[in-house]
């Protein structure tokens, strides 16, 4: 255990970079996560993370920056999942499974054939936000702002489509475009998260803050806000805890997220019990 308070930690530039980039990425993940969880597309993050693995292998082979190669490939794959769901009449989980397994298989094949960069490739599996560079921080912030702006601009279209797709279509909302936008934004976000928690734990950043917020939220806007707060707080606490306890950062962030979920889950049950004792017969929430 390292004896270091948070003020001391902030004096180190690499820690400041980790806090800033991690917070932006967590914010985007938390907001997108609410939409994905409510649409039962939670595992799309996991599937696209596997595609990211294959894309990173291609990037290493071509000696390019992983994000430059991964972003277009992952975005195309996200559209591929959507097309499989629409055209091949597959459920979301099956479509995600197909794209996911192709992604990881491609990564393994490329790594096996090329040799020499296996260590680099496998370092992406677990991420290392403490090693994030200045350029990567700027890219993360810029992409996060783009993703957030698009979500805010189309907030009501996403809300309507998520609650009732048929009604949204009757309202004149182009549901297909909104769905495509959602998976494309998810693709960009998944590539960004690979540095924070690594490919293996990407879906946790998308799912856990959202399901935590869903335990206690009082409205749709409240869910978005709570999810964002939980996601950002988990990243900050996770980074700091990993430094003090000398633990892997990505995994610590995920465990802090899970801790918040348990707290929210227990809180909901306590509140519900109290409500029932005051007004018996209330439905279970």
């Amino acid at each position, binding site marked *: 255990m390292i004896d270091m308070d948070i003020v001391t930690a902030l004096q180190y530039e690499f820690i400041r970079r980790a806090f800033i980039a991690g917070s932006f990425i967590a914010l985007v993940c938390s907001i997108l996560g609410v939409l994905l969880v409510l649409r039962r597309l939670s595992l799309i993050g996991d599937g696209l993370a596997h595609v990211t693995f294959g894309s990173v292998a291609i990037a290493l082979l071509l000696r390019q920056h992983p994000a430059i190669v991964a972003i277009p490939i992952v975005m195309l794959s996200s559209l591929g999942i959507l097309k499989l769901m629409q055209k091949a009449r597959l459920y979301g989980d099956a479509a995600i499974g197909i794209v996911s397994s192709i992604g990881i298989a491609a990564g393994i094949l490329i790594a096996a054939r090329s040799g020499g960069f296996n260590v680099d490739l496998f370092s992406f599996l677990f991420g290392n936000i403490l090693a994030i560079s200045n350029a990567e921080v700027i890219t993360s912030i810029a992409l996060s702002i783009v993703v957030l702006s698009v979500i805010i601009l189309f907030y009501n279209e996403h809300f309507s489509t998520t609650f009732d797709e048929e009604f949204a279509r*009757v309202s004149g909302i182009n549901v297909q475009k909104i769905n495509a936008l959602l998976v494309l934004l998810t693709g960009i976000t998944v590539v960004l998260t690979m540095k924070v928690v690594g490919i293996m734990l990407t879906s946790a950043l998308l799912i856990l803050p959202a399901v935590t*917020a869903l335990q206690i939220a009082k409205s*749709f806007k409240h869910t978005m806000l709570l999810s964002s707060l939980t996601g950002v707080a988990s990243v900050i606490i996770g980074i700091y805890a990993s430094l003090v306890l000398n633990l892997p950062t990505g995994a610590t962030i995920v465990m802090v997220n899970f801790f918040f979920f348990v707290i929210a889950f227990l809180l909901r049950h306590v509140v519900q019990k109290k409500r029932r004792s005051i007004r018996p017969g209330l439905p279970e929430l």
Partner: protein
Amino acid sequence: MKILSVEQLGFRYNSVEVLSDISFSVDAGDYIGLVGPNGSGKTTVIKIILGLLQQEKGSVTLFGTDSSAFRDRQRIGYLPQKPTHFNPHFPATVKEIVSLGLFSKQRFPKRITKDDQALIYDAMAMAEVLDISDALIGELSGGQQQRVLVARAVVNKPELLILDEPTTALDPEAREHFFKVLYELNRRENVTVILITHDIASIGKYASKLLYLDKKVVFYGSFEDFCLSENMTQYFGEFTQHLICHRHD
């Protein structure tokens, strides 16, 4: 004024014919009771009118515009049989859900204005859900949820309101109340109503016209004509015809 005109509509699911040569028109202020047995194509007709399905044959004209070019979505209110994504744990309040009905009239970006807040308030008052406006949808009973969806359907003050079996989840008291609210909308606000229902014993009390479908139009016209028609007596039998024609409490 013609609100809706359906001409020689035909539709197949895979190779099974669901609708054949359906033609009817709806005037402003009409209250149409759309009835028929299960699988008769009632919901399919409505989905084609709303643009959710594409017809194989024929045409649909809404407010004088072919449905493929129709963009004034705010003129139509819709209450579906059951929302496709509705889940009891969806974290939205009554007020938020009612506001969804407003997005059909707004262009990009869709935002709720102060005028919209007044519309939301009016719709919630009409559907008697004001006192639960901050409650989550999952906390409500089936009847309350249905009233919320009615408020969502009418928040835009639509000229045409289409409802697909809206009373199936309601108890008799709530059902009666629902029909009265609909009747008031039709009479006082001159909202044209198309109501799909299996409740043939109640529909006669409120609707001005009857559209009976069984893959084709079996009958379309006023209740008076239906009740006096010998063809309909032969088709339905005296008992069923009397049940539909029975228009008293």
